[in-house]
């Protein structure tokens, strides 16, 4: 009987040790797996933030009259290409700058003709606001896109408000810049 108890104790000890070894191995592998995924995600997050901060502070795209940064020059943006972006900020990026234009308050018109004219003007403004800027349509445009957005690839996006200096009329308009960083196959 005493011998059986000793064997039982020994068995329990062996099982416990094996369980602990198994637990530690699973924990280590699981940790490694999770850690590498979260590290990659953190790297992408921090890279996208870095690109965004660099872009809005870069003298290459900012208007020289505004020293504080975040006032992008529309003429500079129009001549800039994806290759320029890659040279400045690296590969695997997608950048979009979209203007926000002032629209009329059409509800204040009681006359139907005036109101319809107002709606038409707002539609024209919206068309310009959403038009991609190229040398042919400049300055009647409000969107600048650099490099292709890849739908098959996981991307991390960051957006902040900025200003656009409209060189032709010397006005500063409101806009948003969105930076997408490619993270790998989804």
């Amino acid at each position, binding site marked *: 009987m005493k011998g059986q108890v*000793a064997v039982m*104790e*020994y068995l*329990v*000890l062996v099982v*416990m*040790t094996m369980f*602990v070894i198994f*637990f*530690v191995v699973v*924990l280590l592998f699981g*940790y490694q797996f999770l850690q590498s995924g*979260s590290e990659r995600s*953190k790297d992408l*997050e*921090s890279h996208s*933030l870095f690109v*965004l*901060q660099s872009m*809005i502070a870069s003298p290459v795209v900012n208007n020289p009259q*505004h020293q*504080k940064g*975040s*006032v992008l020059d529309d003429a500079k943006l129009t001549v800039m290409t994806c290759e320029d972006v890659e040279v400045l900020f690296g590969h695997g990026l997608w950048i979009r700058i*979209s203007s*926000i234009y*002032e*629209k009329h*308050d059409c509800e204040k018109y009681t006359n139907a003709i005036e109101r319809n004219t107002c709606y038409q003007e707002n539609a024209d403004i919206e068309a310009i606001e959403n038009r991609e800027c190229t040398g042919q349509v400049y300055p009647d445009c409000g969107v600048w896109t650099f490099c292709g957005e890849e739908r098959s690839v996981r991307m991390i*996006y*960051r*957006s*902040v*408000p*900025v*200003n656009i200096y409209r060189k032709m009329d010397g*006005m*500063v*308009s*409101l*806009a*948003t810049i*969105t930076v997408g960083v490619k993270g790998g196959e989804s």
Partner: protein
Amino acid sequence: MKGQTSMLAIVIAMILILFIVIFMLTGMFSDDETANMKTQQRDLYANNLLLSLLSTDTSEGTFSDMLKDEYFGGGTAFGEMAPVFIKATLNATGNTDYDWLIEAEPKDFVGVVKQWGNPAVTEKPGYWDARTVVTWGGNQLEVKLYIRTK
């Protein structure tokens, strides 16, 4: 033998506790890093929203001029136009669930605090803010923007 088993059981339990503590600590540090990045992004967003809005030209002048006019009782354009532009900016950046409040008060003399937006934003903790100073002549107006998720 029984004593040895107990000793080993204690050692194994200690190893397990040690592992769990290490895991919890590493988890805490990684959360710290993520939180720090989130704060940086929020600060950048709030600062840029406030500064970009105030610098924007409209048919009524810059928002900064409109704010000064409205603060001293001369106009209503800031209160009418700022919400429209802020809403459009929040929508364009995918932050449709943000609530905001703008406050203005004199920096160099005692005056009233004027607010635009939702005053409930600062009622509970969890908001983030940006501030700047609008100057004209010899006077200064401190403008603060508060943002929080709804």
